[in-house]
């Protein structure tokens, strides 16, 4: 034991509110993994910690704002993007990241999502997609695959889900990627990359929700869903697939396409500046 290396301090200690642990997330949940990628990206960014701001909405993913030791704003359901918009425009020196879930961003906040992408607002959005409303107990939402079960879809979801990368590309985002909770390096790399890329960035990360989604859909636990991601993820570079076919169907043995779908340089939104005489 005398040779044991005892870490006095974890490298991410300064970024996590340790006094708020334990967190609320269920065993097998993917949100914490993705928050860790965000924390690592902040550390690696070289941008002073006080210049990083995190804004969240409501839901399990929305709790990220409460655990990150940053200036952090836990707003109303669906509204983190417009809140972040006002904050960023007043202080453009800040790196503003919106961390929220698919229900918050694509259901109740869907209108704000598409308009911020249209404006190409210089904010970074990490969208944790667990295919359901997890915090309220597993209801179907706009990303629930057709046929999947939820507490409000007891006979299987009759609706078609959003194909989020396709939507965001059409709206005008500068950067769009999709990964899963097993792609921790890619998630960290993309978050780090978009910190220094002006314009609207949207990173969708598929994540297990064993209690809310898995239980209703025959997925035993978080590990099984991670296994599913590992087996089925196909990098977009290795696939000949159109944007329209990026939808996710977890029922059959269909591929889950991941990778960077958009990386372009449209001018981000800038408030009008008048030339002074």
């Amino acid at each position: 034991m005398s040779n044991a290396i005892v870490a006095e301090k974890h490298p991410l200690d300064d970024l996590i509110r340790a006094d708020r642990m334990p967190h609320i997330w269920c065993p097998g949940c993917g949100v914490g993994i993705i928050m860790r990628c965000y924390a690592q990206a902040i550390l690696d960014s070289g941008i002073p910690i006080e210049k990083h701001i995190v804004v969240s909405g409501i839901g399990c993913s929305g709790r990220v704002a409460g655990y990150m030791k940053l200036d952090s704003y836990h707003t109303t359901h669906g509204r983190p993007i417009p809140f972040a918009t006002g904050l960023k425009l007043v202080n453009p020196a800040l790196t503003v990241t919106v961390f929220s879930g698919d229900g918050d961003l694509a259901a109740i906040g869907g209108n704000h999502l598409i308009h911020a992408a249209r404006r190409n607002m210089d904010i970074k959005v990490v969208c944790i997609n667990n295919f359901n409303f997890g915090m309220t107990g597993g209801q179907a939402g706009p990303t629930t695959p057709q046929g999947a079960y939820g507490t409000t879809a007891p006979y299987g979801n009759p609706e078609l889900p959003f194909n989020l990368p396709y939507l965001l590309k059409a709206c005008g985002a500068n950067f769009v990627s999709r990964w899963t909770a097993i792609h921790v390096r890619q998630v960290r790399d993309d978050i780090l990359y978009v910190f220094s890329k002006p314009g609207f960035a949207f990173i969708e990360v598929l994540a297990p929700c064993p209690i809310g989604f898995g239980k209703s859909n025959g997925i035993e636990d978080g590990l099984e869903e991670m296994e599913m991601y590992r087996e089925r993820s196909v990098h977009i570079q290795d696939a000949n697939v159109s944007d329209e076919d990026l939808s996710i169907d977890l029922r059959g043995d269909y591929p889950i396409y991941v990778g960077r779908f958009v990386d372009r340089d449209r001018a981000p939104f800038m408030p009008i500046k008048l030339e002074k005489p």
Partner: protein
Amino acid sequence: MTRSAVLTGKHFMHGDHACAEGALAAGCRFFAGYPITPSTEIAEHLARRLPEVDGVFIQMEDELASIAAILGASAAGARSMTATSGPGLSLMMENLGLGVMLELPTVVVDVMRGSPSTGLPTLPGQSDVMQARWGSHGDFAVLAFSPWSPQEMFDLTILAFNMADKYRVPALLLADEVVGHMVEKVVIPPEDQITLTERKKPRQSNHETFKPYQVDDPDLVPPLAHAGEGYHIHLTGLTHDERGYPDMTADTHNRLVTRLFEKVQRNADDIIKYEGYKLDDARIVVVAYGCTARSARSAVMQARAQGIPVGLLRLITIWPFPEKILQELAGKVDKFIVAEMNLGQVRLEVERVTHHPVRGVHHAGGEMIPPAPIFDAIKEVAK
């Protein structure tokens, strides 16, 4: 040619434009809004003017986004504003509550039109008074001021910003279509004569131990750290403790909600403004606000000419409700009349406070209440 933020001088000015100029004179440098009659001219004016003073104008996708954006702007340190009318105010109720809970100062202008629903988009109303007070869910308190002229569209916009910042609470300017679209003389004072209130900032230099909701002062207002200042604050709409951390207990909830309510009540004397006209020897008091106060004043003058001892109490602050002055008057006068362009929203408050039966002069909106029905009511109660 770009103009300065404060257009000192005498102007013949549109009420909505005067509100916009008041915002600029108050140091507002961020406006987010969505077009809606009869407030649109405020957005149009600021779209032109804010870039002249290096401010930010953004037209949002809806009113939900507009108020979220101005709260975010406030969190980053700006004086921020939006402008709307009844249907938009309904959408803003959600984040008005967030502003109360996070204690982020901002100004919401409501140029009232005939309501409910789409109602009378181009015609006046005064029926959002109770919505301003109770429209968001839960017990809370906000501030509301009611201008009766383009001059007050300017003056009270500045007052709304100052009070919002001083007490860390959203403030509403409850204007109406008549004063919003009226063109009248507006005097803008020199910049050095406009008093602006500073937000209370953290006094301790130790960022690690700063608690964003620790209250040390009798005014119950905690200091406000802005985004990017290094305090690592957490603000949440969940019930929170002094650290800003969620705390799902009845004790913390009761303490927080009570303080947010008490904060406004305790400072009511500072927030409440009103104007009395011929009240000294009055036996009858007409209570009115906004454009209706113009007709009420005319009716009081006519009645005085006939020897009736009547006066006018013009409410400038509507919320918190001016209880003290009404209680004082209740001990001295015989009768109250309330004239307002709704079916009795402030009348109920006057009845509650004075314990007098109150004669109402009401109209659901669509046209300004003229002096005649108010004069008739004065004659009737004077009998």
